[in-house]
């Protein structure tokens, strides 16, 4: 599948690094974190258990040793009673003491003293017969062992000392027995058990680490698979699911990621589809635009102008103007029932067929029948075309036409000021196969007199809806045409487009809206006679003189080009700056009119302007300075030639600036400028060399007051 833009990243991330850009992340493995945690836990558990048990063991051991020491001391006291009554107690006691020490090496000393405090029994013979002294720093050790009267159990840092009185069977004190036990014995016993504990701790920690490591490795194994899957998604591969067989939360996460990938894939497919549709609409619009003629078309005394507004979805409207070899013109308006690209393809088929058949089909009904036959072969069932086709002869103004189920055309007659709907009978093209259309078609004929107007439209006009649901309807079309017909085809089209837009409100057109309007000029063109011959003659003279300028149909370029060109004309060198300004203004206005009305701002087109030096010299009446001014003496003329639509620069009425209405409108001032600067403006439209305007330079009898101008 294609890598969707915006989802894939071109760089495959290196293993171990996170996908996508950004700084490299130092990875701290969960495995190690958990293992360290396990070690910490095990150790602290074992240590705390060890501490408690050692504390208890120490207590128990101490108690036991205290009891034992006391017991030993009591035995010694019993044994010593007889000896102390004898004459030489030391002789009896010595072996007893020695034997005790030998049997129990943990004992530090065993001593028996008599009632005077003199040592009578001790392992060390040197201490015999010396007074007994307690080891230093003895304090009462415990109350855990029950003591009889006279007994004590004391301890210092090193020793535990039990003291038991030696008593005669009658009750008299004979002396005291002392047994001292090394406390280091307790520590030794405890240390041995601590060693064992350490061993246990080590074993437990090792077991814990191993278990944690193995468990975590097992649990984290899906992470690698998850990561690989997410990286695949990042690369744009949405087709390979992670499919993790894991019953932990990792499995849930993998399922969620898989769902996300599926969702992304759906969204992506929708996006591609949307783009494809948008592209198709664009394509259709371009295709449609390329098939429709642009701007207006001048045919002698006739002007044909079309207008097309595409619906949002691109409808299937089509209009065309086809020049025929014999000078006549084919006019077509059609509405294909399909919309979008399909409708446009039918349009392009229609356009090709019209061009192929235009010379062979002698009448409009022939043309429609031939189109029906050929379209019927290729159109899908249910697709049909309503169509108007007419052939206009510009020489006679005769329009022959036929209609295949299209809306009835309208004709406005200048003479009566009335609008007429022409009946249209035929059935649509490709609606019924097998040539059934032939019998429904009929050629009709009418002649367009000067000033008349012919209007053909599509149902986009009649069936446009207002926001309240009401239709624009044929009556409104008729009203607008009747009202604006005197303004010519541009006026009618402008008014219809505007009215319909107002009717629709803010909504875009639901269907294509198409108009084709033919206007017969109100004033018939000057017959090819003396005037036209004169104009052609003047053009030829001017071209022979070779002092001309080609001007592109671009408003921005006109003024600088004119200014520079005029500056190079010697005859005009003596004009005052203001006079030169006027001349530039007048020529600019004329050329701007051609750009706007004749060429409709088509920048590919151009016009020619020639300077023709004085062709007749008026007798210079010597007199005032004014009359000798350059303005007067350097008379000459300009010849403007263009191929645009005709308009009437000579049919001009002076603007009355004292009327506030005229000032507020602020339009039509261009021709005022032209006529105030030029003595004569003669317009010769539609000559074999195009439209020729002859301008005689020099003030008219009524010029404004201003310096350097003869009034």
């Amino acid at each position, binding site marked *: 599948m294609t890598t969707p833009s915006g989802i894939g990243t071109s760089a495959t991330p290196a293993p171990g690094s996170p996908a996508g850009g950004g700084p490299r992340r130092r990875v701290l493995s969960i495995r190690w974190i958990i293992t360290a945690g396990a070690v910490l836990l095990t150790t602290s558990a074992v240590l705390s258990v060890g501490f408690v048990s050692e504390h208890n063991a120490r207590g128990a051991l101490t108690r036991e040793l205290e009891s034992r020491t006391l017991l030993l001391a009591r035995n010694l006291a019993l044994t010593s009673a007889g000896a102390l009554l004898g004459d030489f107690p030391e002789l009896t006691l010595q072996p007893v003491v020695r034997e005790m020490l030998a049997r129990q090496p943990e004992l530090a000393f065993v001593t028996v003293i008599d009632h005077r405090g003199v040592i009578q029994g001790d392992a060390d013979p040197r201490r015999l017969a010396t007074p007994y002294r307690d080891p230093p720093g003895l304090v009462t050790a415990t109350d855990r062992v029950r003591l009889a009267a006279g007994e004590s159990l004391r301890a210092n840092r090193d020793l535990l000392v039990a003291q038991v009185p030696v008593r005669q069977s009658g009750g008299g004190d004979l002396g005291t027995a002392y047994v001292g036990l090394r406390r280091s014995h307790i520590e030794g016993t405890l240390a041995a058990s601590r060693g064992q504990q350490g061993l246990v701790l080590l074993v437990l920690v090792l077991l814990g680490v191993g278990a944690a490591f193995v468990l975590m490795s097992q649990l984290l194994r899906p992470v690698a698979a998850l990561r690989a899957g997410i990286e695949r998604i990042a690369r744009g591969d949405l087709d390979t699911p992670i499919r993790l067989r894991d019953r932990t939360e990792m499995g849930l996460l993998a399922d969620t990621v898989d769902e996300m990938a599926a969702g992304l894939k759906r969204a992506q497919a929708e996006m591609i589809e949307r783009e494809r549709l948008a592209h198709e609409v664009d394509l259709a619009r371009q295709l449609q635009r390329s098939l429709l003629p642009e701007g207006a078309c001048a045919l002698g005394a006739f002007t044909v102008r079309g207008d097309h507004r595409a619906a949002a979805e691109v409808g299937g409207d089509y209009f065309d103007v086809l020049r025929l070899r014999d000078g006549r013109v084919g006019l077509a308006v059609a509405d294909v029932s399909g919309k979008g690209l399909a409708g446009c393809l039918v349009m392009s088929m229609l356009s090709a067929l019209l061009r192929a058949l235009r010379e062979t089909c002698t009448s409009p009904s022939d043309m429609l029948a031939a189109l029906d036959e050929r379209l019927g072969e290729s159109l899908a069932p249910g697709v049909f075309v309503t169509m108007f086709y007419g052939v206009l002869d510009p020489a006679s103004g005769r329009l022959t036409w036929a209609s295949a189920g299209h809306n009835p055309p309208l004709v406005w007659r200048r003479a009566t000021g009335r609008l007429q709907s022409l009946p249209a009978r035929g059935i649509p093209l490709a609606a019924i196969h097998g040539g059934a259309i032939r019998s429904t078609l009929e050629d009709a004929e009418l002649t367009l007199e000067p000033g008349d107007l012919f209007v053909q439209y599509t149902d986009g006009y009649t069936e446009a809806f207002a926001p309240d649901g009401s239709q624009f309807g044929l009556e409104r079309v008729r009203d607008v045409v009747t009202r604006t017909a005197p303004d010519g085809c541009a006026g009618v089209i402008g008014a219809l487009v505007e009215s319909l837009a107002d009717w629709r409100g803010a909504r875009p057109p639901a269907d294509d809206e198409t108009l084709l309007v033919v206007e017969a000029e109100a004033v018939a063109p000057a017959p090819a006679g003396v005037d036209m011959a004169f104009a052609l003659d003047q053009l030829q003279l001017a071209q022979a003189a070779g002092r001309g300028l080609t001007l592109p149909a*671009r*408003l*921005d*370029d006109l*003024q*600088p080009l004119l200014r520079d060109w005029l500056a190079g004309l010697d005859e005009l060198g003596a004009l005052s*700056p*203001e006079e030169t*300004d*006027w001349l*530039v*203004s007048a020529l*600019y*206005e004329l050329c*701007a009119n051609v750009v*706007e009305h004749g060429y409709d701002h088509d920048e590919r087109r151009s016009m020619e302007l020639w300077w023709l030096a004085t062709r007749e010299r008026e007798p210079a009446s010597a007199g005032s300075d004014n009359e000798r001014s350059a303005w007067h003496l350097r008379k000459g003329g300009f010849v403007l030639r263009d191929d645009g639509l005709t308009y009437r620069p000579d049919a001009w009425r002076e603007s009355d*600036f004292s009327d*506030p209405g005229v*000032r*507020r*409108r*602020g*339009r*039509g*001032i*261009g021709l*005022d*400028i032209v006529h*105030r*600067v030029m003595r004569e403006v003669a317009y010769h439209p539609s000559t074999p060399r195009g439209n020729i305007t002859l301008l005689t330079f020099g003030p008219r009898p009524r010029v*404004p*007051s*201003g310096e350097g101008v003869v009034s």
Partner: protein
Amino acid sequence: MSEVFRIQGQPAGDRTTVLRLKGRLDAHSAPQLLSRCGQVRDSGQNLVLNLSEVPFIASSGVGALLALVEEFRQSRQGVRIAAASAAVKSVVRLLNLQQFLALDETEEEAVAELEAV
């Protein structure tokens, strides 16, 4: 060859805005001028148009100036033209429009005229 048409605005006095135009005043730039001036009109200010840097004025430009004056007059605001270039003056004279378009030699004069009313 196409120059960009520019309008630079600046308040002057209490009730006046000065617009300085630069470039040709023709069918392309006239709508721009009208919409900019529409803003000034809506703000209730008087208007001074400095045309010293307008090297050429076409009929559509003249029409725009006339229409502006009328529009402002209807809302009881004033428009004056200051320091018009020779090209502008010559066309105004050719059409004899001095009585409808108030021309002043300097911006200050124009502002003073408007503020004095």
